[in-house]
């Protein structure tokens, strides 16, 4: 009995140590990436290419999801607000939910699954097929040439994708509330205009998405770079990217929200 308890405690201890050392390793890798980031900006065409792969190719899933999330918010919001006789405020509900929380969080979760996993798989496969070793042997630093552009391509794409997610979300809410249900269009837009504060809501929302972008791209590039150079290694790393990024997004969201709230 005593032995079993001891073993369980040991397991908890080991898992905690693994977690802390894992976060530390990602952070050290992030610092290394930042140190060798000059290439990503001096030869911006490399980063533009990655913005295309991470950002532009994620557009479909981001826009379609934004539209649907906005439409559902419109429906649910109208249903609830109607009880209190304030169905015109549905525009406010949709816009604030999207700018403060749903926009940054949902688009980051989608980005982690769509682009984060692709970054990990690509870097992991480059490692497995010795492309990174070949680059090293050519006296080219793979962190500067391969990791940096992918990291910055993702980080720069994330806030833009979030802004687009929020935009289509508001459009979705408008389609449901105004065009289908018949809420007054003037009230929908004017109440939204009055209630949404640019710096407190919009800027903070985009700031969140920037932080999420940093987290996702650090995790995705690290997992690819540290993956075991085998098929199982790469598939495991891809899964870990999606799981760790999703948990990091949710945990960071709590911390950021706590700091950003006025009261």
């Amino acid at each position, binding site marked *: 009995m005593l032995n079993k308890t001891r073993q369980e405690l040991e397991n908890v201890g080991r898992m905690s140590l693994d977690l802390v050392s894992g976060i530390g390793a990602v952070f050290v890798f992030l610092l290394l990436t930042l140190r060798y980031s000059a290439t990503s900006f001096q030869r911006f065409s490399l980063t533009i290419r990655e913005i295309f792969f991470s950002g532009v190719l994620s557009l479909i899933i981001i826009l379609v999801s934004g539209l649907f999330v906005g439409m559902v918010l419109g429906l649910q919001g109208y249903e609830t607000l109607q009880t209190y006789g304030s169905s015109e405020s549905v525009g406010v509900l949709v816009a604030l939910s999207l700018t403060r929380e749903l926009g940054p969080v949902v688009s980051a979760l989608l980005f982690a699954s769509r682009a984060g996993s692709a970054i990990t798989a690509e870097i992991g496969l480059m490692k497995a097929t010795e492309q990174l070793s070949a680059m*090293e042997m*050519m006296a*080219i630093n793979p962190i500067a040439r391969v990791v940096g552009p992918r990291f910055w391509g993702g980080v720069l794409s994330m806030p833009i994708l979030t802004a687009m997610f929020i935009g289509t979300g508001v459009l979705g809410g408008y389609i449901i509330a105004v065009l289908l249900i018949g809420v007054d269009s003037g009230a929908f837009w004017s109440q939204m205009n009055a209630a949404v504060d640019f710096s407190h809501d919009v800027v903070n929302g985009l700031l969140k998405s920037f932080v999420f972008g940093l987290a996702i791209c650090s995790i995705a590039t690290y997992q690819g770079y540290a993956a075991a150079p085998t098929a199982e290694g790469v598939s495991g790393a891809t899964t870990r990217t999606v799981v760790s990024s999703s948990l990091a997004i949710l945990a960071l969201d709590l911390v950021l929200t706590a700091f950003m709230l006025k009261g």
Partner: protein
Amino acid sequence: MASDAAVEISRLNFRYGERAILKGINMRIPRGSIVAIMGQSGCGKTTLLRLIGGQLKPTEGDLSVEGHDMKAITPDALYRLRRQMGMLFQFGALFTDLSVFENVAFQMREHTDLSESLIRDLTLLKLQAVGLRGVRDRMPGALSGGMARRVALARAIALDPMIMMYDEPFTGLDPISMGVIAKLIRDLNSALGTTSIIVTHDVQESLRLVDYVYFVSEGVIVAEGTPEEIRSSNLPYVHQFVWGEMDGPVPFHYPAPSMQDFLAGNSPHSRRSMHA
């Protein structure tokens, strides 16, 4: 740098954690020569190549490449040295997101300020040297194994390296591609005066090609000599390896309990003892 050796290794040991991979290696590779390092899979030959390329550091002993002490070399000096080295990886390691042309031009774009037209001419010259100017616009995925290896060779010699390292250059190739690669290695050596180090277990092809051979077994150099000396060697290991004999110093059977013990149920893996 009075020495005429491109690579000098003495009393080199290398360990992964507790596991000893290379033990007491002594080697001297003269400039302009073609040297083969032979041995079974997993005997430590690729590790030796990675040590020479500076991707790994020796645990003990001395290793110098072109007069640079590889144990104490700084990252900047290592990167400068690597610009004079080329390496052909076992499966080519071509960059899959770049075309054949861009793969070969890669180092020129990264390390030089040459004009676009000069890069184009040099790249096409290198591709011409391996006979593949016609596939310049293909992606690596659309090449056969032999072609990919030749493109990788063109890429490795893009900056005319002083030392070329070949990691299993003949593995998995058909006899024609094998002959083509061997001829290219020889031609490059005579045209550029490059020092070539070939890690291989392909005995017959290599003995025709090289000036000197080192045999590595379980991390130790067990034999060395010119191809003639190796062919006429009476050392049991070399004889078994060169003539491809099934049993010898390297046993056919991986160590296991005797068959008698197994059938009598005395072995931990036998069925009777498992049920006991």
